[in-house]
């Protein structure tokens, strides 16, 4: 593949053109059925904003924010940033939890909702 120099270093990680494993030969499954290398037929792991999103130890802030996203009474969460959705709920008088607001305005938390970019 043609390599493009310049500021596009991140792009290669984002739009991965070759699997991480670099196995060019498809490996045959062993008799016992256990696969030790990655199978080319399987798609690469779910990429979210450039990094593999399997880590289970997202912090508690994210947990609170995700619960805010999933709460039905504040309306749909897709298509808005979390702060916009909080402001909207506030304006309608729904009394959304204050700690969500402090987390969002604090700057450390993810501003986009859970499904952003994935749906």
């Amino acid at each position, binding site marked *: 593949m043609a390599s493009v120099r310049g500021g596009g270093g991140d792009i290669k990680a984002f739009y991965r053109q070759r699997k991480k494993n670099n196995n060019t030969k498809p490996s045959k499954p062993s008799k016992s059925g256990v696969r030790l290398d990655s199978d080319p037929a399987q798609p690469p792991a779910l990429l979210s904003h450039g990094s593999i999103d399997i880590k289970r130890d997202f912090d508690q802030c994210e947990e609170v924010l995700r619960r805010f996203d999933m709460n039905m009474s504040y*309306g*749909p969460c*897709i*298509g*808005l940033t979390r702060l916009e959705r909080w402001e909207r709920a506030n304006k*309608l008088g729904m009394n959304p939890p204050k700690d969500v607001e402090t987390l969002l305005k604090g700057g450390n938390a993810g501003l986009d909702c859970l499904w952003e970019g994935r749906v």
Partner: protein
Amino acid sequence: MDIDAESLSLIQRKQSLYVSQDERFLLGLQKYKGQQYSHIYFFRLYKMREQFRSLINHQHPNLPVHTVLGLEVGKQCIIVGTLYKQMKLKPSVLDEYSKERSAVPLVKPHNFLHPDDHLILEDESGRVKLIGDVVKPSDYVTGVVLAVHGEETSDGDFLVHKIVEAGLPPQIKIPQEAKEDKYVAFVSGLSVGSIKSNPLQIQLLVDLLTGHLGDDKEQNVASQITRIVIAGNSVELQQGLLAGQSLASKDQSKLSEPIKEFDLLLTQLAAAMPVDIMPGPHDPANYSLPQQPLHKCLFPGASAYNTFVSSPNPHSFYLDDVGFLGTSGQNIDDLAKYSEAKEKLDFMERTLRWRHLAPTAPDTLGCYPFTDRDPFVVESCPHVYFVGNQNKYGTQLLKGSEGQLARLISIPRFCETGVAVMLNLRNLECHPLSFSCET
């Protein structure tokens, strides 16, 4: 021949205080970020549920209000939700893929009703089919928020005993009775540039409104007209030229001829009195509701006057404390396709009783996907509700349960009927103005 200066008397045109209420229809600098329509439906249900809460407490204080998932068989309750009308004949984009292309001609019927249509009530938790004789699917459309009183059957459907309608929204009373007659003129469907329109007829209208026609008595009446509202379809551009190829310069000037002609008329009007112009389905404005105001550069002559107001569609304003709300007809025409009533005025009455201008938006009527509001919810009842581009002139005075009064006006297409409408602000009475020039 000298003109005797003393015998000329200047008749002053009356004026009315105009306050625009159009902020909720304007998109401003909003950018489309890829959002979907779910937010509009969320807002609609939320706002209407709030309004229903007090109504239900008033009328049925003993009945519990449940969500759809919380229904129990045999237990009477009230549920509030958005209607979805399952229509057999509703055109679906998937039909292109399922049917054989040659067999069925894609003829658009005027009305998509079918006896098998049924209604489904939906809220955030689930949906349930509405059955019962009380519910007539032909009267309702998708997108109306209703409260229904009934019970769940063993089949899982909801048997409706009574429909709790929102009714006319609360109205701010006009503070004081006006002492003198002041009129507002309405016209729509001028269609300048189309074959149907008669330039002489339109010029007659402009001359009468500006006071250049008639004797002193006529001019006196014309001086009492404080505003003219043009409710859509003012120009008709030649669609054949817009075939997708780049336009030759000769075609370009042909395309803009109707707008230039219309600008000349507007300039005459704007020089004489305040003019509100609304875009319509055929005007050079965006397609989806709310249509944004026509751009000033289209009217270089008229926009120089400060009496010229380019308004969005729908349009809402106060004139001397009388509340006006109106559209260029798309909402009512869409209702006519998906439901039935004896007259167009019935559709208008229904939209007010449902407290929603365009319930079929965004389902079958194009609409901008707002995330922070549903601009078509009618929160305060207007005194005058007008709809343009209809087949014929009609008017009705609606009375609400709390003393609300609303004058409904159906403005006919001027190019076909030659009829404009005059409304008296003092007593909300309405009469047509017909123009005809038989050659």
